[in-house]
């Protein structure tokens, strides 16, 4: 379970979020540009330090301002799919997916086995030798997800994972994404602008406005939220 109660002074407003996400639950975070969604993900990942508060995963504190605990990003074991996917352009698809395992100094045989397994599951084995810079948007998204999942994360963060994709491919990708994330059985947060993503992928949804959660409820009810005219 992810428990989160953080505050951070941003340029135009204060980000104040209190959240709990259960094992296997997918929380969809909706909101306008600049409302603090990505900043919140970066705080959970350890890339930005909150001013005050606490972040705990499965009871273990990742950040606690009162106890002066701030675990570095590499020690948090969080799978993060960035909005731009951030695939390393000088590496092949295989090397991108293997990166997290190599950083953990796993034996080569184990890395080969795990990478083959994940690339095959994602339908990417055929393009394993292609440069990450030269593959399509859909393939990039699947590589980024495989790279985040192979480290067996305790939490998944996805920042607008479908926004760079062709509209026609999005429906199939939503189903695929939901299946793959659910199979991990870890808490997940997905940032999106698209209410169809919320309804198709999420279990629960929160609307963030100027750094504060103003609406929260079941994902299937999100279409009834009249208060989000600028999204979707």
């Amino acid at each position, binding site marked *: 379970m992810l428990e989160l109660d953080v505050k951070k002074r941003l340029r135009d407003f204060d980000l104040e979020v209190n959240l709990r996400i259960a094992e296997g639950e997918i929380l969809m975070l909706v909101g306008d540009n600049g409302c603090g969604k990505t900043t919140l993900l970066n705080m959970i990942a350890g890339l930005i330090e909150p001013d005050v508060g606490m972040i705990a995963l499965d009871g273990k504190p990742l950040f606690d301002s009162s106890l002066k605990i701030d675990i570095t990003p*590499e020690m948090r074991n969080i799978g993060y799919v*960035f909005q731009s996917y951030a695939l390393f352009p000088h590496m092949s698809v295989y090397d991108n997916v293997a*990166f997290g395992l190599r950083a953990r100094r796993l034996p080569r045989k184990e890395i080969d086995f795990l990478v083959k397994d994940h690339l095959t599951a994602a339908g990417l084995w055929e393009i394993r030798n292609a440069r990450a810079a030269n593959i399509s948007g859909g393939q990039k998204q699947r590589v980024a997800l495989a790279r985040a999942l192979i480290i067996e994360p305790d939490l998944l963060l996805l920042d607008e994972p479908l926004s760079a994709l062709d509209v026609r491919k999005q429906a199939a990708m939503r189903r695929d994404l939901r299946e793959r994330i659910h199979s991990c059985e870890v808490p997940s947060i997905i940032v999106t602008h698209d209410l169809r993503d919320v309804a198709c992928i999420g279990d629960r949804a929160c609307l963030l406005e100027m750094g504060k959660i103003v609406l929260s409820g079941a994902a299937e009810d999100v279409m009834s939220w009249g208060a989000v005219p600028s999204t979707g």
Partner: protein
Amino acid sequence: MDLNRFKPEIVEPYSRIIYGPGFNLRLRNKILKTGLALAICLTMAFIALPVASLFLKSPLDTTLRSLHDPVVMDALRLSMMTSTLTTLIVVLMGTPVAYVNARFHYPGKEIVDSLIDLPVIMPPAVAGIALLMAFGRMGIVGHYLNALGLSIAFTTLAVIMAQVFVSSPFYIRQARTSFEDVDLAFENAARTLGASRVYTFFHVILPIAINGLISGAIMAFARSLGEFGATIMFAGNFQGRTQTMPLAIYTAMQGDMDVALCLALVLVVISFLVIALVKTLTRRMYRNART
């Protein structure tokens, strides 16, 4: 469809309306183009003529014979050795500085930046005196080193120090730009995947920025190869010990012109190779940045 109707026939009479009768746009364009071509030719001639003269005034057999002259051999060996060591030192010292300045804000960063750029605008002779005042026998640091029996001025080490002083900004500036061009998301992605800062630097940031770093190192190598003023002031002009190629040219000019021409030709060839290498790497760098 009659494509002739798109021909800009109206332009000429219209220009006459604006600029008055007798104005001829085609003639004006022709004069402009001729003027520009003339300017380009004059500039090219100004640069190419002295370089071409070097080749024309040095008969091949004399040049090849001069290559075996001890002065040429010593200068060539010393220049290549010191410039290579200088480049290595500049890369090892400059890379962390460039990375920190590209990624972090800290108090006094502006001062550090200005200090890094200072040798570029400082006249080489001034750099030589400054090094002498710091590391010479009576210098601020040199005074203590001398007490320990260590003397830097007028040694090969002084040549390397002078070259490091003048060439380091060329590498650090280029390296900093290359690090700034690496998207922060790559670094963040690597960290969240379990890579430490050091692992991320060597496996993600450095490979992405490498072409820019090599290009900067080549520029620093070229600058140190051509270094004259600071070297002659701080290291002197002793054959085989501190007499690099530019210093040997200067010395040979007063005696054996064939040797001076031979050394000059070697330096010109190296300069051409450096330009070609930097251009190739820069092109590759921009191609990688686009993908």
